[in-house]
């Protein structure tokens, strides 16, 4: 599938990405995160080689920004540190580990365990549903375990 013009990508995904960010961050912070998500997507867009998995890609960027937003200290909140013990965030480690998985499983594993999305959001990102997302994530985890044993 060839890469659509950015206008089309934006039109197709803006509403669900915004709704997702509102669920994660609340309405006020979602607005900044929304803008940042699509600016980041726009910067990276010419480097994409094809138009597949664009929805999962958009969710991945939005999730990353939501995580960053959560980490950012706010005047009215004392937020816990989300980084793992060796200082690298969980999602960064997972993305690397999951590199070898088939695309759907990879996206499901990274979005579930790296970004802590629930299965209905992941299903939406993958263009399927919560059940299929759960199956893809566990298939991916099984595959990762097998690789580790070998």
């Amino acid at each position, binding site marked *: 599938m060839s890469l659509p013009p950015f*206008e089309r990508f934006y039109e197709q995904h803006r509403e669900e990405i915004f709704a997702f960010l*509102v*669920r994660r961050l609340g309405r006020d912070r979602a607005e900044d995160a929304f803008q940042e998500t699509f*600016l980041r997507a726009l910067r990276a867009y010419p480097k994409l080689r094809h138009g597949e998995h664009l929805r999962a890609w958009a969710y991945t960027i939005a999730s990353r920004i939501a995580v960053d937003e959560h980490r950012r200290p706010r005047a009215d909140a004392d937020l816990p540190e989300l980084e793992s013990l060796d200082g690298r965030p969980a999602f960064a480690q997972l993305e690397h580990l999951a590199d070898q998985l088939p695309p759907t499983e990879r996206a499901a594993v990274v979005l579930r365990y790296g970004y802590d999305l629930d299965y209905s959001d992941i299903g939406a990102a993958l263009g399927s549903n919560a059940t299929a997302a759960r199956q893809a994530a566990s298939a991916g985890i099984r595959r990762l375990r097998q690789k580790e044993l070998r």
Partner: protein
Amino acid sequence: MNTVSPDLDRRFRDAAAQEGLLDVAYDLVDSPIGSLLVATSPRGLCRISYDADPEREVEQLAGAFGIRVLRSPKPIDAARRELDEYFEGKRHSFDLPVDVALLADFNRRVLRELARVPYGEVVTYGELAARAARPRAARAVGMVMNRNPLPIVLPCHRVIGANGKLTGYAGGLERKETLLRLEGAIL
């Protein structure tokens, strides 16, 4: 409601242009001869379309100029203002930079000559061909006019047949007539 407000949408479209991330920005501009789709690249105005089907137009712009095409009103403001002034009869020439880099040499040369045809005057296809140093290329000049990416700003409406007839116009003869009447070239 968790939907993208027009204000948020507008802020993103402004920011994308502001940060210089677009290959092409476009918007629709109202005019007395219908809605115009106006597009600009970082180098200058690159398309004006009559009766545009935005979806198809966006595909074509992406194919020609790059994949980062976004509707974004701000970069079109200067063109919108100059077009408004033109249609109010207050502007006789355009000061907008144009991007015709992708056109063939011959087309560029003909369009450069076309841009020199003054407001309120007309030339024939043959005359324009002669000015572009290809005196026998009247028909080819007709094709260049037909494919002019920037009608109105590059005034292909000022080019008429040797017999004085308006001959043709990619946007329809009615529009050609309206433009020439606005400029006082015909009564």
